C-alpha cells in the first residue's frame, strides 16, 4: 500500500470519543436515512477502511462537505476532511459528463459568457431543461445562474484598472468564477467599497477557479493543478509584494485556506493568513480605526443574515454581521445558522434535489415568515438556493455596503 498522500493527520480519527454530536449537527443525516452520518462515515468508517478498502460505502457521496460536523466536534476530529479524503481515495465511481460540466466552472463560464444571450436563453428553455434533467440528471427545478455578457475581468481591465494606481494601499482581488462569469456587479461593488476607503484593487497575476466543485465532483488531479496555480499567484502577491488577497465568496476563501492543504496536499502555510474574506478585511480595517465608513441617510432596509456553512466553519460570520450593523438604516435579523441545502453543485444533481430542499425547508419557512427586504449571505450558491426556494431576493454583504455607502463622504473621511 502506498503511504497516504493526503494530509489528514495519520491518527486524527482516533481522537473521536464517539459522542455523536457531529451526527446531530449533520444536515444530511437529519433528512436522508441512507447517509450513515459523519461519525460512521468519518472516524468509524476510516477504521474499517484501514482494515479493508472494500469497506468504502458509496453513500459517502451524500456528504455535503459543509463541515458543520467539524464545528460541532469537541475533540477536533477533522471529520469532513476524513470523509472527503475517503471519497477521493476509495470511490470507484468515476466522474461523468455531468460532473465535468458542473465542476469546470472556468471552461463553462468562458464559453457561456461569449455567447451569453444564447446560453441564457437556451438554459431557460423547457426542452433544454428536459434534456438536462432527463439525460444529464441535473434537476429540472434548478436554473443555472445567468451568464454575464461581459466578464468581470474584461470590465475591470477596460474600466477600472487604470485608476487604481492613485491609491497607496492595495489588495489583490480573488474574484472567483461567479463574479467573473455570472455576476460582475458584485465585483464592481467590491471595487467601489475598497476604493472609497482608499484601497486600490488589482487582479492576481493569474487566477483559476478555486476548485471546490472539482473536489466535490472527484476531479482531484485538475483541482490540484488549479490550486497550485492559484497558490503561486497568491504567493507572488502576499509573500513577495506584501499585498493581501481578498475574496468575496466564503467558499472560495475557505477552499484556498483549508481544503488546499487538507485535501489536495498543496502547502499554503506561508500565505494562508494573507488570504482573507472581503467583509472580514473591510470590517477589520474599520474596527482598527484604519478606515471609516459613511452611509446614506435614506438607506432603510430590513435584512436577514444567513450564515453559510463555510462561514460557520471559518467562524467569520461575526465579521459580516458586524459590518452590516455599521449601517445605521439597517434592521438586521441574524437567522439561526443552518445549511440551506445547496452545497455548491450538490443540489443541482437530480438525485440530491429532494435532500437539498428538505435540508433547507425550515430555513425557507423562517425567511418567508420574516419577510425581510433582502437575505444577505457571503455565499453565492446559498443565494441561488434561497432565491429559488423563497420569494426574497438575496444579496452579498459587500453589495449592501456598496449600496448604502455615501461614497463622497467616505472618500472625504478617509482622505484626512
Amino acid at each position, binding site marked *: 500500500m502506498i503511504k497516504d498522500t493526503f494530509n489528514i493527520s495519520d491518527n486524527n480519527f482516533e481522537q*473521536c470519543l464517539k459522542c455523536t454530536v457531529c451526527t446531530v449537527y449533520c444536515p444530511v443525516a437529519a433528512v436522508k436515512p441512507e447517509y450513515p452520518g459523519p461519525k460512521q462515515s468519518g472516524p468509524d468508517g476510516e477504521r474499517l477502511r484501514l482494515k479493508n478498502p472494500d469497506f468504502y460505502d458509496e453513500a459517502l457521496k451524500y456528504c455535503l462537505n459543509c463541515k458543520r460536523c467539524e464545528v460541532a466536534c469537541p475533540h477536533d476530529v477533522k471529520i469532513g476532511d476524513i470523509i472527503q479524503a475517503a471519497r477521493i481515495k476509495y470511490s470507484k465511481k468515476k466522474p461523468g459528463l455531468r460532473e465535468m460540466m458542473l465542476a469546470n466552472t472556468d471552461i463553462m463560464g468562458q464559453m457561456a459568457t461569449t455567447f451569453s444571450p444564447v446560453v441564457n436563453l437556451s438554459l431557460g428553455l423547457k426542452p433544454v431543461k428536459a434534456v438536462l434533467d432527463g439525460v444529464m440528471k441535473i434537476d429540472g427545478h434548478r436554473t443555472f445562474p445567468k451568464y454575464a455578457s461581459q466578464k468581470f475581468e474584461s470590465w475591470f481591465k477596460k474600466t477600472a484598472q487604470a485608476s487604481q494606481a492613485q491609491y497607496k494601499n492595495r489588495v489583490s482581488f480573488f474574484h472567483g468564477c461567479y463574479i467573473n462569469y455570472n455576476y460582475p456587479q458584485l465585483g464592481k461593488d467590491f471595487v467601489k467599497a475598497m476604493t472609497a476607503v482608499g484601497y486600490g484593487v488589482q487582479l492576481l497575476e493569474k487566477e483559476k477557479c478555486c476548485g471546490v466543485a472539482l473536489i466535490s465532483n472527484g476531479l482531484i488531479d485538475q483541482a490540484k493543478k488549479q490550486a497550485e496555480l492559484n497558490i503561486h499567484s497568491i504567493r507572488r502577491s502576499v509573500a513577495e509584494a506584501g499585498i493581501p488577497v481578498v475574496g468575496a465568496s466564503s467558499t472560495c476563501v475557505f477552499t484556498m485556506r483549508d481544503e488546499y492543504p487538507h485535501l489536495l496536499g498543496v502547502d499554503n502555510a506561508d500565505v494562508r493568513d494573507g488570504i482573507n474574506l472581503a467583509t472580514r478585511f473591510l470590517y477589520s480595517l474599520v474596527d482598527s480605526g484604519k478606515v471609516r465608513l459613511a452611509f446614506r441617510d435614506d438607506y432603510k432596509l430590513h435584512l436577514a443574515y444567513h450564515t453559510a456553512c463555510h462561514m460557520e466553519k471559518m467562524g467569520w460570520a461575526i465579521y459580516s454581521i458586524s459590518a452590516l450593523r455599521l449601517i445605521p438604516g439597517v434592521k438586521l435579523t441574524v437567522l439561526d445558522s443552518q445549511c440551506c441545502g445547496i452545497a455548491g453543485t450538490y443540489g443541482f444533481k437530480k438525485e440530491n434535489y429532494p435532500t437539498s430542499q428538505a435540508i433547507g425547508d425550515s430555513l425557507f419557512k423562517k425567511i418567508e415568515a420574516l419577510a425581510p427586504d433582502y437575505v444577505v449571505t457571503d455565499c453565492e450558491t446559498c443565494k441561488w438556493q434561497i432565491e429559488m426556494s423563497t420569494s426574497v431576493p438575496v444579496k452579498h454583504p459587500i453589495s449592501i455596503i456598496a449600496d448604502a455607502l455615501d461614497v463622497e463622504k467616505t472618500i472625504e473621511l478617509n482622505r484626512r
Partner: protein
Amino acid sequence: MNINSESQFDAIIIGGGATGAGTARDCAMRGLKVLLVERSDFASGATGRNHGLLHSGARYAVTDHESASECIKENMILRRVARHCVEENDGLFITLPEDDLAYQAKFVESCRAAGINADIIDPAEAKRMEPSVNPTLIGAVRVPDGSVDPFRLTTANVIDAKIHGAVVLTHHEVVGFIIEQNRMTGVKLYDYGTKQTKEYRSKLVINAAGIWGHHIAELAGVKVNMFPAKGALMVFGHRVNNMVINRCRKPANADILVPGDTICVIGTTSSRVPFEECDNMYVTREEVDLLLKEGEKLAPALASTRILRAYAGVRPLVASDSDPSGRSISRGIVLLDHETRDGLAGFITITGGKLMTYRLMAEWAADLACKKLGVNEKCRTADVPLPGSREEDKAPSKKVYDMSATATKAAEGRHGFMTEKIKAESLSDKAVVCECEEVSVAEVDYAINDLHVDNLVNLRRRTRVGMGTCQGELCACRAAGRLAKASKCAQRAQDDLTHFLNERWKGMYPVAWGHTLSEIQFTSWIYEGVYGLSASDNK
C-alpha cells in the same frame, strides 16, 4: 441431586475452548454421542486471550522443529476449512540493527526444513509491502503467517458439533465425577442458571480444559503437572499494519504484532503465575511498558496509536511425566490416557499445544476415544470445511439479508456464509447496535437465538459488539436492550450491563491515559450520570 435421565453419552468433553469444541466436533462427526460442557463461555480462557496469530510455524522453526511443522500443516488446513476465520495477511520476520543478521540464514534454513516457505526480501521491498514496519530494518523474511479469529473458530466448531448431534451446555461447571470400579462413568455439573447440580452419564470423559484441566484432573484423583504461564497482550484502536510483523531472533517478549479484524495486537510477555490468579488476571504497569517499548521497535507508529485495552491469557505448560519438577517443559501436544497412565479407565486429558494445533489435538483425542469405544471412523476435520466456510451454506438465491453495505460486509467477515441466516426484515432490524464494528440489531438477535448467547460478554465474543474504539460506550445499553427482550427480564439485563462495563474497564485500566482515558470518562458520564448505574450494582 438430579440425575439426567435423558441419555447416556459416548463422550463428555470438558472445556469450550478451541480444543474442546474441536474435539466435540471431531467426535460427533465420527458418530459419537457427545456432550460438550463449559463452565463459562466458549473461548473464554486461553483460546480467546492470545494474538489470534495464524502461525506459519516460523517462530518455532529454529527452536522446535516438531511444533513448526505441525503449525504449517495446520495453517494450510485452516486456510481451507476455516476460511471465514482466517485472514491471509502473510508475515515478516524483520532484523533490526540491534539483532544479529547471521540468525536470518539459520532461520530460513530451519523454516524450509519444516516445510515453511520463507523468502528473504530486500528491506526496501519489506517497507513497500508493509509501510508501518520499522524503517531501520536491515533484513526481512516473508512467511505465510496470517490472522485467525479464535472466537469465530470456536463457535464454528460448536455449531458443527451441534449439527452432528452434540449437546452443548455453557455456564455448567464440573464439580465432581462419578467413578465406579476405577472407571469414570459420568460427571456432576453445576448449572449456573438453575443453580442446581445434575449428573450426566457417559462412557468416556475427555478433559480439554486448558490450564483448568489441572484442577479437573485433581477432581478425578489423578495428577497432571501443569504450570500456568501468563502472557500479556495489548490491543490498539485500529490496524497499524496489514502484515504480521515478527522479530527474526530467538523468540522473546513482545516481538509479534498481529493485525486482526479492525485492530492490531502486540504481545506477549511470559511469566509464571500461581493457579489462584488464572481466573482473574491483571496486566501490570511493567508489562504495559514492556509491550510498548518492544512494540515500537516493530512498528514505530504504535507509539502514537490509541491503545484500546490490555489483557492476559494463561498458557497451559505441562511438565513431562518423566520430570515432575517442571524443569523440562513440553510446549507440544500432550495426550494422556489415564487408563494406562493412572489406572483410571474412561478418562482422557488433551492439553499443551496451542491454538494453531487445536484441530490436531482434537484429532488425537478423538482417535483415542474412538479406539477405546471400538468405533472405526477416520478423522475428516482436515477436509470438511466448518460452517461459515462451506459453499453449501450459501442461500440458493433469495437475499434475505439487506442492510447497509458496511454492516453486511462486516457481518460476512464474522459469520462467513452463515450470514445468510441473519434476517433483517424490518427497518429496526437494520438499525446499528455497535457502530464501531457495524453490528446490526438483526445480527445481535441471530447471535442471541442461535449462538448460545446469555449475556453481553457472550455476545461480544460472537459479534464483536463492544470490541471497538468506544469499548461499549454506545452499544452496550442497546445490546442489553435486545438481551432484555430475549430474556424478558430487565433487571437481569441491567445487572449484566454493569458487569459488562466493569469488564471493559478492567481491560482499559492498565492503559487509561490520553484518549482512552477520555473515552472511559465519557462512558462513565453516560452510564453513571445519565442512566444512573453504579459500580456497586455489580454483583
